[in-house]
């Protein structure tokens, strides 16, 4: 039987020292879907997606309770291999952050780290990942030039290719297009629609139109709580909670 990569979160609370950043989060994120997280700054969206590959472990005084499962595996179990978890749950950030090395080395970074040494295998992974990220045609002639010389939109797609090269099952994206122009944004949105066939995608976005365009389900966060979680078209056409309505229509605050 194929392993499942849906995400199940039960009674999850997260504290940064005394600050209660996530409050009793319960959510089921389906595989092969794009799930959008929306909400005002500081509401816990990024904290939430970082907790899905335990990036919050790196923060001092961060405590988490409850259960986060990927498939059947509770990722906060003591015997969880964190490196393997982060390989399986890739992350793309708001600002493109290529490593200061060649395009090729950026994409080959994860497979090398996880033991692939043969040049022809690496070549295959690099080509496949760049193709998946829709960047191959633009960089095939300059694989060995420094990635910092790419445009912002290309850098972001390179970061996606780098995440895909680790062969993840889940892709977390924290405002991946907020620093990009509409054309690059369109390319990344198209990419998400294609990639969801193979991956579970969770995206944080401040762009409501983006959420409506690309996501299957949307969760609205406010002050560390999930206020509403529903199919995207329903949430935006007929939100059930007044606070969701106020936020998405811009009446908030």
């Amino acid at each position, binding site marked *: 039987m194929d392993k499942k990569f849906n995400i199940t979160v039960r009674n999850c609370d997260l504290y940064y020292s005394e600050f209660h950043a996530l409050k009793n989060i319960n959510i089921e994120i389906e595989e092969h879907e794009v799930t959008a997280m929306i909400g005002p700054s500081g509401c816990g969206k990024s904290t939430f997606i970082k907790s899905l590959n335990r990036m919050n472990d790196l923060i001092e005084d961060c405590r988490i309770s409850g259960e986060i499962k990927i498939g059947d595996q509770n990722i906060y179990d003591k015997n969880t291999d964190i490196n393997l978890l982060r390989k399986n749950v890739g992350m793309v950030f708001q600002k493109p952050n290529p490593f200061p090395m060649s395009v090729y080395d950026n994409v080959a970074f994860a497979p090398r780290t996880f033991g692939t040494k043969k040049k022809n295998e690496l070549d295959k992974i690099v080509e496949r990942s760049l193709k998946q990220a829709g960047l191959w045609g633009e960089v095939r002639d300059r694989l060995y030039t420094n990635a910092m010389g790419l445009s912002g939109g290309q850098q972001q797609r390179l970061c996606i290719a780098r995440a895909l090269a680790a062969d993840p099952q889940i892709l977390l994206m924290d405002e991946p297009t907020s620093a990009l122009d509409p054309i690059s944004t369109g390319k990344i949105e198209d990419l998400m629609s294609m990639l969801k066939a193979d991956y579970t995608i969770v995206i944080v976005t401040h762009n409501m139109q983006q959420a409506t365009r690309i996501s299957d389900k949307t969760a609205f966060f406010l002050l560390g709580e999930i206020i509403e979680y529903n199919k995207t078209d329903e949430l*935006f*056409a007929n939100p059930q909670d007044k606070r969701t*309505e106020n936020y998405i229509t811009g009446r908030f605050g």
Partner: protein
Amino acid sequence: MSIRVRYEKELNGIFDNLVLMCRHIEVAIEKCVRALSEQDYNLAKEVFEEDKVIDKMERDIEQACLKILMMEHPVASDFREVSAVLKMITDLERIGDQARDIAEITIQLDDEEYINKLVHIPQMAVIVIQMVKDGVQAYINHDIELARSLDRTDDKVDELFNIIMNDLIGLIKKNPENAEQAVMFMMINKYLERIGDHAVNIGELVEYAITGNHPKN
């Protein structure tokens, strides 16, 4: 001015025009039925002018709604409010056409003596005018009860429609020469009945705008 305040100002501009369009429609129905009752050719002509104004208002409101959709990308109740107006003005414009059609028949009938005294047609007109008014008011005031009441009021219109139809059938049977006028009055009867249906549509759109759900038939 904040974006939200500007948005509400634009939306209020649409509401004002919708109320104004509704006012023109009330006048058009009232005039066409009065012109019919009094066989007033000039008054019937005035309905044609009202209809032109109504058609222009439909286009203006439609443009304003499309501009809001394009510029503001409204969602949730904002979106439903704008989309409801977009459909509502089509119903209102059709009502305007029906008033014009009644005025045209009035002109065709000229000063022929009527085969029967007009009693139920003016009664029907009073009810449908109120229905159109109630539909638009329900929208402006978010009054779901008023919107839902339109369906019940429409039953009265249907009742009058049947009474008029039976009267006309009786008149044709009595004297086949009445048939020509009877057909004309039957058309007027149908136009007024359709106005009631359009008002019911408006009530349903109001319910959708408020609740997000289309009413169950």
